[in-house]
């Protein structure tokens, strides 16, 4: 073989090696590029904020101090929470709000609607479930406006005009009179759809054989629900309960729109929000608000981590069936 041929060959090999290195570097880059926008957003709007909440909760930052003259106060905000006269009532409100909305609507009503709509002809069932989705899809301001009108004083309010009037109950402005009734109702009608969808698909996936067996055994509808359906959907039931507890604990938009926390309906998350971000007196207490929020953030982080196990994460991760990058 001539010398030039072997040189050419050596060159060729070298070129190939460089080419391979380039492709392997580029191939590592490409999954990273796919992920990059998501990573940036998650870091900027989840990770950094969690740190910020915790850090600011250790300061006295407020409109009074501005962004320059604040100082570290260690755990003062937290001890202030512990001794604050509002703390106990707000805590009680929060527990009541979560417990009642959850049991009556997000789980209770959700289950009732799911059971009812799976025991009537398919198309009607679908229609009713779609209707129950409406509150969630309606702009919250519009939705709350409707409820305000339902509760309004005579002669405008729908409740007074069409239900209580005919029953002879004296009209009043029901929102201040029964604030919790409406807080729970408005949140509940939105919240029920989540459980409804999950329960419905769980009930529909119960194997027909179970139902047939129950029928053959001569179960009544009630017995079938009690002894066949409920035991088989206890997993989704537990899931909805825990998941919705967390959402209810931290949600306040509807209450903000409905009562702004008046009439004794202040809950924890709303308290934090109002202290830090929407204060009537224009005195934003970022440090104190952050401490209030930090409590919820910590609860959220812990419960979210628990979900990881709950979701049976390992079963959800399939190895890709392509290894080329």
């Amino acid at each position: 073989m001539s010398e030039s041929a072997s040189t050419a060959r050596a060159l060729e090999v070298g070129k190939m090696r460089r080419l391979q290195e380039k492709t392997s570097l580029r191939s590592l880059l490409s999954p990273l590029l796919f992920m990059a926008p998501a990573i940036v957003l998650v870091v900027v709007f989840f990770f950094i904020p969690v740190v910020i909440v915790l850090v600011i909760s250790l300061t006295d930052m407020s409109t009074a101090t501005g962004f320059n003259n604040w100082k570290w106060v260690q755990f003062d905000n937290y001890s202030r929470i512990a001794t604050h006269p509002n703390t106990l009532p707000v805590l009680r409100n929060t527990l009541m709000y979560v417990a009642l909305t959850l049991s009556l609507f997000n789980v209770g009503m959700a289950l009732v609607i799911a059971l009812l709509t799976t025991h009537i002809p398919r198309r009607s069932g679908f229609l009713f479930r779609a209707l129950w989705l409406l509150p969630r899809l309606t702009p919250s301001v519009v939705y709350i406006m409707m409820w305000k009108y339902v509760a309004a004083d005579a002669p405008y309010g729908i409740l007074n005009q069409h239900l209580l009037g005919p029953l002879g109950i004296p009209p009043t402005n029901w929102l201040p009179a029964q604030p919790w009734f409406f807080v729970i109702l408005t949140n509940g009608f939105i919240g029920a759809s989540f459980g409804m969808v999950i329960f419905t698909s769980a009930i529909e996936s119960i194997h027909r054989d179970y139902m047939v067996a129950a029928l053959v055994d001569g179960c009544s509808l009630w017995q079938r629900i009690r002894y066949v359906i409920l035991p088989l959907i206890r997993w989704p039931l537990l899931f909805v309960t825990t998941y919705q507890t967390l959402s209810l604990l931290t949600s306040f938009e509807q209450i903000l729109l409905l009562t702004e926390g008046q009439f004794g309906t202040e809950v924890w998350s709303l308290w934090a929000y109002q202290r830090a971000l929407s204060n009537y007196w224009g005195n934003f207490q970022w440090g104190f608000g952050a401490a209030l929020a930090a409590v919820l953030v910590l609860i959220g982080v812990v419960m979210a981590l628990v979900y990881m196990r709950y979701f049976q994460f390992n079963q959800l991760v399939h190895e890709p069936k392509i290894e080329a990058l």
Partner: protein
Amino acid sequence: MKVKLENLTKRWGHVYAAHDINLEINDGEFVAFLGPSGCGKTTTLLLIAGIYKPTAGRILFDERVMNQVPPKNRNIGMVFQSYALYPHMTVYENLVFPMKLKRTPPAVMKERARRVAEMLGIGQLLDRRPGQLSGGQQQRVALGRALTKQPDLLLFDEPLSNLDARLRLSMRAEIKRLQMDLGITAIYVTHDQVEAMTMADRVAVMKDGRLQAYCPPDELYDRPRTLFIAGFVGNPPMNFLEVEVVQRDGVYHALRAGFDLPLSAERGKQAAGRGSVILGVRPEDVMIAEEGITGEVYVVEPLGRDDLIDVRIGDVHVHALADPNRRCRVGDRVHLRFNTQKIQLFDPKTEQSLLWT
């Protein structure tokens, strides 16, 4: 283009889908990978295509090591069992898609797509979408898509297994024809031994990720090197009997209860004195005759051209092919003659042939 696999290994956890595979495919050769489902054929093919990365070993195209080369730079055409046509593209768009990626000039692209479509008889379907085609038509489009880019290597992964029997037969001939005309090196994966035997220049038999044999089809049939190959290749399958070979009066005999078969000297001497060995003989090499080993007809299965007769000899069953005109009936006593030139002998422990290495 030549293809060479060196110690190619692919492991997932504890499963070896490819285990130390060595083989070489010549330029223009048609090689079939044959093996039961789950033995690692698809995996090996996808390793060659670059979709999977080898755990160990090398893949060479001509002299070039391909391990690090991404699939798109390997210039391969592949036909999948599921066809894998792009559902949102028309047949024409499917055909030209690989060429577009290679920046083929539009005029050339059009001309080539037209020619390939003509060749495969799908010229009138160019505006349809894959969803509107029958299985056979989709198969042709998939074949066309693999061909238009003028690949250096064609890969087929059980391309005919979703077609009905008659279509399979005609497509088989057509694929073989096309490959010969175009002279493109081809690897054809199948679990159907008839396909492998009729189409391939050489057959690579796989089992549990290992290469069992790699040779021309007739050699596979006539000189199986392992018990597995002997049993897997051939239809109806080979008979196996546990026998002992002894030499008596200068003649070798394969013996078991109620069974005494004289063997040719060059075969018999490989097995004599080894104790128990496995004797294999294909049904077409067992004939119903006027005299020979005696047995009783147990089942008769008409196959059309022949009857497959299940004959019981003592406590074993031997299948034989017989002329339907003989009208064998269940319970008849018959005599069997064996074509001793076609007898195979295997070591029961290693499962290797005693005749061929």
